[in-house]
């Protein structure tokens, strides 16, 4: 059965701590996410997101502090801008923008970590496997007859 592979970038100060809270509170959530701790969601360069897709991720989840709560003042505001513009670019490269999701989750919202991971996993499960890696391989080698 198809199990989505999801890469999650969680900020150290809010979402990752929220995920810790979910853990110590023994909340169960889908094991499909691979969490990567970053110091700030503003550190999640669009390069990291697209590299995750190129290397076979079916979905990418970014978690940051609520607007106004950033440990570094404006990091999550920058994330939000990059996220919006990246979503506009993704369809041109044939990646469904629904495969990328941004959520503000504070350190006290362990239940929101659980709910977000579960609902995003379900969404990616419905979208099916990403076609990016297969296509990259075919595109690199295939020759076609035009006309």
């Amino acid at each position: 059965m198809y199990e989505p592979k999801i890469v999650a970038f969680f900020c150290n100060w809010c979402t990752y701590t929220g995920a810790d809270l979910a853990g110590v509170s023994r909340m169960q959530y889908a094991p499909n996410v691979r969490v990567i701790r970053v110091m700030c969601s503003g550190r999640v360069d669009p390069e990291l997101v697209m590299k995750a897709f190129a290397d076979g991720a079916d979905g990418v989840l970014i978690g940051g502090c609520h607007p106004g709560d950033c440990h570094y003042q404006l990091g999550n505001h920058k994330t939000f801008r990059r996220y919006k513009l990246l979503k506009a670019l993704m369809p041109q490269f044939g990646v469904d923008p629904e495969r990328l999701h941004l959520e503000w989750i504070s350190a006290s919202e362990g239940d929101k970590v659980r709910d977000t991971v579960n609902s995003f996993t379900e969404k990616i499960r419905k979208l099916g496997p990403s076609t990016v890696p297969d296509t990259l391989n075919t595109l690199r080698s295939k020759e076609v007859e035009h006309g």
Partner: protein
Amino acid sequence: MADKPWVAFYWCGSCGGCEEAVVDLAEKILDVVNAVNIGFWPVALDFKKSDVEEKPDGFFAVSFINGTVESDEHREMVELLRRKSGLVVAFGSCSHMGGIPSLRNLYDVRDCVNYAYTKTVSTVNPEGTIPQPRFKHPAGHETTTMNLEETGKALDQVIDVDYYLPGCSVPAHLILDAVMAILSGNLPPKGSVLSPSKALCSVCPRQETKPEKMQVKDIKRHHLSEDDGTCFNAQGMICMGPATRSGCGSPEKDNAPRCILVNMPCHGCFGPPDGTLDQGLAMLSAIASDLDYTPDEEADIDRIIEKIADPAGYFYLFGTAKSLIHGRPAGEGKTKPVEVPKEGGA
């Protein structure tokens, strides 16, 4: 003559601007011609493929290859030149990063061919004739021509490349420096781009006018807006400077970038500085974080981003082939091949 090194020039999917760049050396080309023998240069001199085939392997000291690798013919020629050359230099944006022709990787190659031959405004093709890889003449003989590949590729996606000369087209001073470096054997490590790795902004004459804090309130089209002579990105006209390496400016003009000198924003033809995975995404990240902070954040950002009508066209003008996701996957939202009408174009 015998002791001078032999060089070859070849063009793949190319506009001819890179050939022009060689001629742009002006009188300095005499120094180059004095120092080397040209053994292959189809665009300027009458050489045939057989002239290359008959040479022993490694005969050419260096081959300068420009243009996107687009077809089986290009592939065959660059593989041949790779065998016959000591060094291969990817010459110009197209062979360095795929160039403008590789923007077609975002579409189906059949759609591109059909569009180019039947649908563009300047095309008169009432019979809807489209070039075919094979054609059987009624008289009996068969003609074969080149066959387009699914994507346009940078040179190093097809063969091993020793050095890169960036630019659309490569500026004369970089060509001269590269030729002299090769002749003297004083070369950087293999795989180097023969141009400084600092970002273009570091040599920009408008750098002084860049504000401490960027607060872009709107995205403007360059040709429809008034330029006040300050940093283009601060004015909201997208300039690829932050994500592009320097080196295009002539040392005689303080290395000031070519486009900026004529009041055009940078389009990114030199590719990203060393260590950048993807030039387009680096630029996307830069321009997005420059957008102003406002109370009604989401609506304002949506409104500004909507003005960037074609993000891929802005950010990947010269480098789609080298993007992390270097083409549009089949399936997801891809258009079907266009049926070419038998009579009359659309």
